[in-house]
Each structure stands twice: as structure tokens, then as C-alpha cells.
């Protein structure tokens, strides 16, 4: 019993240090308000992990990161810190009756030990409270500077063991920020963790930057930059910063999207006089024209099998979504409801397509579930000016951009629309979130 109390005290001390230590990061990066889980989701407790090493206290509250991840997914309702009354660290200290009384289905406990050369070793276990069975346990080595990444990986394991779906918390997002107005605007392409932490600048420019797209291996970003005066598509390696121009034709060079195998890129070019969809072979840089219509055809994405493209076209008068074979041919209309449907994003299983849907002056994120007959739309956001949806690689969540007052903010919403969390840049306008693919463990 005394031990439990000392762990408790230590956990609070760690939280306090975390709060103080991470404040400068908050000021420069994304302000992430706490999120409470969906009340109808699975109840789970993540007990604060105890640091049992001899070094300085850890800078990351691992359990808090895991709790935030699981709540944001909409699949879990994690017990708040105020309601955690015992602090078991290992199986021998775990009293299932306590957690059964608190109506918890699952509990995660863990501890952090010193590893080699200043690194640490995180041991954690997941239990089913009802059956009192251990569902999973793992020891994860981590550098002290990478504890948030390790925490997201723990959340991924827990998520997968319980839901059967691979977790997507240990991923990143790219987005664009701008500050200022008119010719004095400064733009930046950023990459941050999936929860908005650790924002890093990929490129800055006094000219517009837009449309970031991830390579399937998460190592590169394609994006549009106006730094040469008009739009060009760049391809940049994230670790080295080295980059090259993929397309800089007359007119628009826009909307890049990697094929699922990473060998090709779909893009929009208006060299013929109006925007058309093309596919570029990345090895040879040869482009093939896919659409041929006097309307605006743009914003192509690939279906997960790499066989088709889904894109925005106003060939029927207003923007709507169409599908066309990646080998070319006649496009077929895909969106059936709403006067304005644009900027598609597709779930990894190919069943759900999210889009910006406009009606009058209200734009919301809508999801079309193609597995249910093709006309089943769910609204994920309240409006009024929501755009740029991007599916998590496991399809469980969607990032999108919204406007609040005079600035752009990002939201993460669960794919069922039940849980939404706002991610706001402290200064300026944030837009165009692009969720990265899975990372390799």
C-alpha cells in the first residue's frame, strides 16, 4: 500500500514537470485542448506509468498521451485522472474489483526502467477487467527524446488488440500555415505528430504553398509552391530536405497524389488551356493525360488498389466527384447528393470517401460509404467552411480544416463523427491537413 501511494505522488510530480517543461513547445506549435472520450465508447483506464529508473524524471507523461490518442479515436472513453483511485504498476498490484466497480472494460499498466546509454525501457500490459486476463504485454526500448513517439506506438498496440484494427496514432500530418495578408503573407509547410505535437518546418516561402501529399513510405512530400512566380510541383525528402521540381508547365501545376505503390503521381496540369488530370511515371517523368474535357478536372486521388482515380470535376456545371480508370477512359459520376462536392479522400479499405460538401454558403465534411449501396452520406462536421478532409491510414479518423473567425484551424474527428478535437496554431492560419501513411515499426 505505501508503495502505491509513493507511485501516485511520483506520477503527479512527473505530470507537473511535463506541464512546465513542454510549455515553450505549446507556444510555438499547435495548442491541443484536452479531449474527453465518447460516452458510448469502450471504457478503459490508462494508469500513469511509474518511472523506476535512477535518472531525471521523464519529460513525457506516457499514459496521458495514450489516453489522448484513445479518446480522440472515438472508440474509447478513457477514465479521467481525477477518477483513478489506485496506481498499480505491475500485475501483482492490480485489483480487478476496483476497476470492475469503476465500470472499466480494460486497464493498461506500465513502468519505465533505465535502458542502455541513457535510453529507457517501457514495459506495459493490457488486461481485460471482466475476464481478468492479460491480453498483451510488451517491453519497448525508447530514447528519452522519443517518448511521445513510443507512447503513440503503445496506443497503437492497445487499439489494435481491442478493436482488431491497426492503430494509426504513431503517424504524422502535414499542413500549411500562413500569416499576414496580401503580398506580405508568409507561408510554411509543416509536419507534426498525428496529435499536433512536435511541429517542424518543411519549407517556408513568401509565395503560396499548398496541396501537400505523402509518399507511401512517409519519407517524401509532394507539394505545390509558387516560389518561381507561378505554380510548380516539388518533391522533397523529409530527412535530408533535398528536393526537385516534378512539374512546372505553363499554367496550373497542382494537386499531386502518389499512387499506392509510389511509382506514379497523379497531378493537375492546365497546359492545354484548362485543368486536366495526368499521371506521371516517377522513374521516367513521362506524363499521360487521363481526362480530356473543357471543364475543371482536378484533385485526383488513387483508390487503394491503384486501379482508379477519384477526382473533382465541374463538367456537369457544379463541382462533383467522378471516378476514372488510371488507364484512362470515360469517367463516371460518383457523388449523387449535394450541389457542391470536392476534394475527395479515401479510406484504406476503399469503402469510404470523404469530401467537402457545399450547400448554399455552408460547407461540411461528408462521408460516402460505398459498401452500403453508394448513397449513404454521414456528416462529420458542423460547418460553415469546412474543407480538405484527410483520412487516417486506418480509416478510423479524419483530419479537416475549418474557419473560425478570421483564421483557419484543424480538427480531428472520429470516422463516425462522434468525437471532434480542435488543433489550433497559436499564430496565423492553419489548413490543408494531410494524414501520413502508416510508419514502419
Amino acid at each position, binding site marked *: 500500500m505505501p508503495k502505491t501511494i509513493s507511485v501516485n505522488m511520483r506520477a503527479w510530480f512527473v505530470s507537473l514537470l511535463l506541464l512546465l517543461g513542454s510549455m515553450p513547445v505549446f507556444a510555438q506549435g499547435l495548442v491541443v485542448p484536452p479531449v474527453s472520450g465518447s460516452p458510448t465508447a469502450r471504457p478503459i483506464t490508462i494508469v500513469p506509468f511509474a518511472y523506476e529508473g535512477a535518472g531525471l524524471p521523464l519529460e513525457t507523461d506516457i499514459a496521458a498521451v495514450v489516453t489522448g490518442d484513445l479518446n480522440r479515436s472515438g472508440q474509447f472513453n478513457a477514465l479521467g485522472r481525477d477518477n483513478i483511485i489506485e496506481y498499480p504498476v505491475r500485475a501483482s498490484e492490480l485489483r480487478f474489483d476496483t476497476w470492475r466497480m469503476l465500470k472499466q472494460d480494460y486497464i493498461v499498466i506500465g513502468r519505465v526502467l533505465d535502458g542502455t546509454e541513457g535510453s529507457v525501457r517501457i514495459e506495459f500490459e493490457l488486461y481485460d477487467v471482466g475476464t481478468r486476463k492479460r491480453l498483451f504485454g510488451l517491453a519497448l526500448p525508447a530514447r528519452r527524446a522519443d517518448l511521445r513517439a513510443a507512447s503513440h506506438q503503445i496506443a497503437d498496440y492497445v487499439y489494435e488488440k481491442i478493436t482488431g484494427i491497426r492503430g494509426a496514432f504513431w503517424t504524422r500530418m502535414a499542413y500549411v500555415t500562413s500569416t499576414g*495578408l*496580401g*503580398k506580405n*503573407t508568409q507561408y510554411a509547410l509543416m509536419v507534426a505528430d498525428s496529435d499536433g505535437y512536435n511541429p517542424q518546418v518543411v519549407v517556408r516561402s513568401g509565395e*503560396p504553398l*499548398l*496541396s501537400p501529399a505523402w509518399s507511401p513510405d512517409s519519407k517524401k512530400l509532394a507539394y505545390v509552391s*509558387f516560389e518561381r*512566380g*507561378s*505554380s510548380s510541383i516539388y518533391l522533397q525528402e523529409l530527412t535530408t530536405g533535398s528536393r526537385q521540381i516534378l512539374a512546372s508547365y505553363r*499554367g*496550373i501545376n*497542382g*494537386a499531386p497524389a502518389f499512387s499506392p505503390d509510389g511509382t506514379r503521381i497523379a497531378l*493537375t496540369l*492546365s497546359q492545354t*488551356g*484548362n*485543368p486536366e488530370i495526368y499521371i506521371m511515371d516517377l522513374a521516367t517523368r513521362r506524363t499521360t493525360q487521363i481526362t480530356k474535357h473543357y471543364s*475543371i478536372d*482536378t*484533385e485526383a486521388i488513387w483508390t487503394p488498389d491503384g486501379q482508379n482515380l477519384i477526382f*473533382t470535376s*465541374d463538367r456537369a456545371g*457544379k*463541382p462533383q466527384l467522378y471516378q476514372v480508370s488510371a488507364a484512362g477512359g470515360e469517367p463516371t459520376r460518383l457523388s449523387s447528393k449535394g450541389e*457542391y462536392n*470536392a*476534394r475527395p479522400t479515401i479510406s484504406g479499405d476503399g469503402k469510404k470517401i470523404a469530401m*467537402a460538401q*457545399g450547400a448554399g*454558403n455552408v*460547407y461540411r465534411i461528408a462521408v460516402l460509404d460505398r459498401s452500403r449501396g453508394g448513397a449513404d452520406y454521414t456528416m462529420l462536421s458542423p460547418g*460553415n*467552411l469546412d*474543407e*480538405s478532409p484527410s483520412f487516417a491510414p486506418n480509416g478510423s479518423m479524419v483530419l479537416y480544416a475549418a*474557419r473560425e473567425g*478570421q*483564421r483557419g484551424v484543424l480538427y480531428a474527428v472520429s470516422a463516425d463523427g462522434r468525437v471532434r478535437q480542435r488543433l489550433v496554431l497559436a499564430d496565423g492560419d492553419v*489548413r*490543408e491537413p494531410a494524414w501520413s501513411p502508416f510508419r514502419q515499426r
Partner: protein
Amino acid sequence: MMNKTMRVILMGVLAVSMAACKSKPEKVDPPAPDPVREQPVTPPVVNDGKYTADSLNSDSCLRQRVVYFDFDQADIKSEAAEIVACHGKYLKDLPGAKMTLEGHADERGSREYNMGLGERRGNAVSSALQANGGSSAQITVNSYGEERPTCSESDETCWGKNRRVEIVYTQAQ
């Protein structure tokens, strides 16, 4: 070239027939149907003086460099006809002049679609300028989509200011 020659001939014919009328005022018979008079007689160009490079700063029409549009539309509105006409004439009068048409959209809707919309507006202004005497070699269209707003309020007044094509001269003569 053909047009100018034709106009000179027609004006000549017209002058001769008017002179003929003057010299014989007593003639009561209506003149024989004249093919020349069947043609719509365009009034002589009011400003038959050509623009110069200085006109860009002095001429009240040429000083207007922004054409505005309706939501999701690229049609040149009637109130913009005068601006397009004088800039088209300027391009014609100064064949060495060059301009970029920067097309813009308001914030509603998706960014890449708005990139297309900005270009469509730029192309519409380009066509109108060419109909007024400019040549395609003098005009470059560059769409910024919704990336370069002039104001950031989410209301119709601001949106209306952002749906625009800006005429930017890159070479005055």
C-alpha cells in the same frame, strides 16, 4: 489590315456621296439605294489618338486594374466591359506591352478547384482583351486560386473583393 482598308474606302465613298448631295440641294428624288448605306455606319472612334505608356498612369480607365466576378462564375460582368475595352486598346496601341492576369477566387470550396476557377477567370479576361485588340502573346494568365486574398472576413463583401482578376503590366511598351 483588311478592316482598315475597307473602312477607308467606305469613308471615302460616304464623303463623295455627301458632297454630291450638297452640290445638288434641289434634287428631290431619293437617292438610289446605295449598298454603302446598307452597311451599319460605325461612328468614328471617339479617341482616335493612340494611348502612350504615360496613359497607364493618367487615363482614368487604364488606372483601373481589377475585374470582379460572381460566385463560381467567370463571365465578365457588364460593369467591367469598359475596363476590358481600354486595356485591350492599350495592348493594341502598344504592341510591346505585356501583362499578367492574376486570377483569384474566394475562400469557399476546395483550394485546387479554386485554382482552376482563378485560371478560368483569367482566361475570360484574356479573351475579352483579345476581342478588344490585344494579342495572346502579350498576355500571361497566372492563377493564385484562393491563396492570395485581399481580405479575410467570411462574408459576401469580402468574398466579392477576393473574386477577381488583377491586371499587372510587366512591360509598359
